[in-house]
């Protein structure tokens, strides 16, 4: 093994690589067609490791690219932003942290304390709270609403959205969703929630919530679908090309094994291959052993597979739409007559 090869291995070009694959492209096209300021909230769910965060990044980047001319003309314009709903480690979801994250993404300087003041619609008077030297929750919320309007944001991607709704009673769930909906209504911004399958359960505990959200499934590549096998193979090929100096053309022969081990999730595939590259660097060069050491263990795979199958079963009714043809002389028709 030469020094040059070792240097090349240690720099790991997979670290920042993002693969744009069929499933991702199809979903992005669907999301694009549903993006509408007056449209429903979108919720994109899928298994761990399928690439949901990457989807979120791509959605925003697409929007920036499509609006490049307008952004050139208007230095304040931000067509889309992405935030993570971070688990604060406390009992309840921290809206304060969440609003601060949004403001950071909007380029706001948080050293200026935000104040809550507005015109009351009923009385027509200016309402203010006492000026504070720190950010209050109400002030942060006011700042977020106004900044989203001023920056003319079209949509806001919220990754790890399940954190907003976890540890909530059924009643609190509706309050959380109402908070999001109200933010969307006052700022005219469409919300795109991204999360794992448990987000589905949380959102659909209530029929009231269910009808206000458009659900989309970011599914994995399945080994029993030919088109999926071909698409997954293309992903492996892209990863191989990205680090050809390491594994040469030696990755493609393991496509089937990789698909089985990673359960068809491209995010998991990337994580496995990154690990493999690091093992190879540590061991002085590429080998099949390095790849094997990087795979998910049997226990890990089985656990993830159980969660995926469970999730797929739960979400299928939520994403299946059927248009039934009316039957001749159906009971309903006879009754109407």
């Amino acid at each position, binding site marked *: 093994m030469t020094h040059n090869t070792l240097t090349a291995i240690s720099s790991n070009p997979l670290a920042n690589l993002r693969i744009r694959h069929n499933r991702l492209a199809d979903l992005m096209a669907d999301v694009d067609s549903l993006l509408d300021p007056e449209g429903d909230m979108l919720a994109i769910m899928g298994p761990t490791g399928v690439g949901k965060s990457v989807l979120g990044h791509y959605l925003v*980047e697409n929007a*920036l*690219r499509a609006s*490049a001319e307008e*952004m*050139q003309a*208007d*230095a*304040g*314009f*931000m067509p889309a932003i992405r935030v993570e709903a971070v688990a604060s480690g406390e009992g309840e979801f921290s809206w304060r942290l969440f609003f601060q994250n949004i403001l950071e993404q909007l*380029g*706001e*300087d948080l*050293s*200026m*304390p*935000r*104040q*809550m*003041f507005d*015109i009351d619609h009923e009385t*027509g*008077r*200016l*309402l*203010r709270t006492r*000026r504070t030297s720190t950010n209050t929750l109400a*002030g942060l919320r*006011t*700042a977020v609403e*106004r*900044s989203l309007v*001023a*920056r003319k944001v079209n949509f806001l991607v919220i990754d790890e959205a399940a954190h907003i709704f976890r540890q909530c009673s059924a009643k609190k769930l509706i309050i959380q969703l109402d908070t999001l909906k109200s933010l969307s209504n006052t700022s005219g911004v469409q919300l795109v929630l991204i999360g794992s399958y448990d987000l589905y359960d949380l959102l659909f505990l209530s029929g009231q919530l269910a009808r206000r959200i458009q659900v989309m499934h970011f599914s994995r590549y399945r080994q029993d679908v030919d088109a999926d096998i071909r698409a997954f193979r293309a992903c492996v090929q892209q990863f191989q090309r990205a680090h050809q100096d390491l594994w040469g053309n030696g990755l493609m022969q393991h496509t089937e094994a990789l698909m089985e081990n990673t359960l068809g999730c491209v995010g998991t595939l990337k994580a496995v291959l990154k690990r493999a590259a690091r093992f190879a660097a540590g061991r002085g060069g590429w080998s099949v052993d390095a790849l094997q050491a990087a795979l998910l263990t049997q226990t890990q795979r089985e656990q993830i597979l159980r969660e995926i199958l469970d999730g797929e079963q739960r979400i299928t009714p939520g994403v299946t739409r059927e248009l039934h043809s009316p039957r001749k002389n159906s009971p309903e028709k006879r009754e109407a007559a």
Partner: protein
Amino acid sequence: MNQAPRSMLHALVPQGVGTPATESLLSYFCRLAVSHAVSTTDLAHFVVSQVQHDIREDFDWQQRNISGIGESAQSWAAWLSALTGVARLDLLTLTPWSGVLPHRGLAARRSHWCPQCFKDDQEAGRDPYFRLSWEVGPVEACHRHKVELVDTCPHCGKRHVRHNAGIVVPGWCTHCGGFLGAVDATPASPKQLWIARQVEDMIASQATLDTLPYAGSIPTTLNLLILGLDGGQSAKFAKRIGVAKSTAHGWLNHGNLPTLDAFLAMAAHSGLKLEQIVRGDISGWAPSQTDTQIALPFDLIPKQDRQPSRILDWDAIRQELDEMLKLPVPISVQEAGQRLGIDDRHLYLQANEQARALGARWLKYKASCRAANQDLVRNGLKAAMPALLDAGLPINLTSFRQVVPSDLLNSAEGTFELIKQVRRDVQASRV
């Protein structure tokens, strides 16, 4: 994806530019504070901290006339242009007339408004805003609505409630929160309306000025007016306008500038528009009477011949700035201005995109130089560690000064923090 940097402050669209209802920079600043949900005080401190200007951070922005004609207005227009990415915010001030109007008598003595204008704004679905004409001293009425401007809240009866507070929403009383458009104002007199109309039209014209008016044209304009109105007799003209002979003499011979009141008087007597006189554009004006007995030389040259301001080709300047963006070593906007012989504030006003891109590139370059210097110092400290430990010296700045060259030790900011880091690393390695 290579994008122009996003503005630090919201790129609000200035209202009414090019019309008699042009917004004032004061109003724009207040609306910016509302948009960011911050107090005007905090926003002012933020702006000052960003432009790194050498003024006290506890200064009171309300003491400055940022919509006027002076240094404050020029600076604040440039700073806000830099931070919002909105060019030509100087059009929300009276600075385009800074070459021909003196400060004296220009600023409004009251903070007043037209309630009907606020009502119209609300009904049109836009945020109420302050008009620039309300900031001009002689203006006491709104020409559009034919009413006197008011300075008292119709709800609480207080004065100084338009913008004199931390939390300001243009159109609402800063004391009681009531809407300031909820009052019927007194009809204005013909004189008040005429003055308002003249000033509003002057303000409307400033958006389309080809060249900035300059003081050198004033004596020529005055001589034509004196000839046409008073047969060339400047003393008679001075009496007509309501000023002393010596004052008129100063205008003609010493480069002194007439006040806005004086210009208005000239407009009233000549039938010309205020903006024409101030711009020196009175060609085609026929004197109302000619006096054949007095032949005056037309080539009167004032003793101080003030040159017109430089006419700048901004398209060419923007191209030069684009070239400067490609320089291998980034330069600051200030440096770019020096190379072009232009105040860097004007670069933000007239070539906003290029100026902001230069500024962003420069800040990034400074940050990377800072980081590189800190790495150098850190490595120097680490290299000196064995010598310190061998000598049994404590790990502090005094000890390092004995073993590290001073030019290296002083080459980066945050030396104390670097020493702390090195100390922590040593302690960690011992553990």
